[in-house]
């Protein structure tokens, strides 16, 4: 279970949010909504442990993620605003090295399947620099297929640049993850159909301190 306690975040001169308390139970998808600049990405980075909150804590299974560190990250899969896709590696190499570098097994067959699911089967040997934005996004999302054992998925605008079919595949993937008691935390502006149990968290626009 993911839980925040009195979370506060200031970036520059702006207070993005304060006294933010919420819980995400297993099998739930948390949709974080809010205007541009309301602190969605900052909140996700705090939940990942990439950014320290100005005040407050994030707990995973009752323990602070600052204490758990690697034990927490092992159960986390993050797809950020940046794809983390290397232009000079092929789509397949990106998926396999992406998994291996984060300590996950990346058998060839599963990596191939992941790309095929995202309609990149014919592009597995193409260098990522020759792929379109949407295709690169798919390569980044293909890592999620190899991160099924990660309980918590944190996705920053995962639907950006995806076509209709890509959106459907991703919604389905998210649905399957929550169905096996995983947790998904995501931000999106699109009215993507999110399957399963979805709770919504609205962040208000930031006010200057």
């Amino acid at each position, binding site marked *: 279970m993911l839980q925040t306690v009195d979370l506060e975040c200031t970036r520059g001169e702006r207070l993005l949010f304060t006294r933010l308390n919420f819980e995400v139970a297993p099998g739930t998808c948390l949709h974080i909504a809010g205007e541009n600049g309301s602190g969605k990405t900052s909140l996700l980075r705090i939940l990942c442990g*990439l*950014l320290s909150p100005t005040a407050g804590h994030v707990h995973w299974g009752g323990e602070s993620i600052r204490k758990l560190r690697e034990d927490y990250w092992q159960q986390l899969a993050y797809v*950020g605003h940046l794809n983390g896709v290397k*232009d000079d590696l092929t789509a397949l190499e990106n998926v396999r*090295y*992406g998994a*291996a570098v*984060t300590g996950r097994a990346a058998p060839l067959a599963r990596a191939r399947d992941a790309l095929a699911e995202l309609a990149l089967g014919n592009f597995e040997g193409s*260098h990522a620099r020759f792929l379109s934005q949407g295709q690169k996004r798919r390569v980044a999302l293909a890592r999620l297929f190899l991160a099924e054992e990660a309980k918590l998925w944190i996705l920053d605008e995962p639907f950006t640049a995806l076509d209709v079919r890509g959106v459907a595949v991703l919604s389905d993937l998210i649905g399957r993850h929550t169905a096996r008691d995983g947790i998904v935390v995501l931000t999106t502006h699109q009215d993507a159909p999110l399957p399963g149990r979805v709770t919504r968290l609205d962040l208000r626009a930031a006010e200057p301190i």
Partner: protein
Amino acid sequence: MSNTFTAVVRRDLLLAVRQRADVANTLLFFLVVVTMVPLGVGPELNTLRTIAPGVVWVAALLAAILSLNRLFANDYADGSLEQMLLTGEPLPIIVLAKAFAHWLVTGLPITLMAALLGIMFDLGVEPTAILMVSLLLGTPALSLIGAVGAGLTLGLRGGGVLISLLVLPLYVPVLIFGAGAVEAVAGGQSPQGHLLLLGALSLGTTVLAPWAIAAALRISME
């Protein structure tokens, strides 16, 4: 843990092969800097023999500095670094692997090229061999210390200049003992003491630097 280490090394080597121009630039820079010196100093062989070890070592330091940008900047820009920070594997192992891969494509070729430069400066067989041994022992420390600087200056404006200011002073001991080893053997003394100290520096940084690099990267990502 060792799987992750090998995976990161293989990934970075593959990227280095695909971005050959970047790697070649560093090595060419090293060669050109060293070649410039006889043109400036004049062709007097005795002078050249005396200054050769220092010149080669200073050029190696500059080449190392020049190549440090490549170490984390690309991974930072495309988001791969974020992924590396969020793994169940210890970050020091990952950065050690990155520094090792960096050494394989800069320190190691520089060491091998020193054989050629030894002939160019008419150093003689034994001093050239010692020059190569000193580079082999010292360049790992250059990659590791440099990686700390690269981690700290990540994402900063003007990071390139700042990194030189941060890292060059820390390279001083490596330079002194590296060039000192060759001068000792040319002067008829044993280079053993210098070489042992160089080895100790590299071993020490292998143990300590990964933790410093990991901490630097976490700070830079905030």
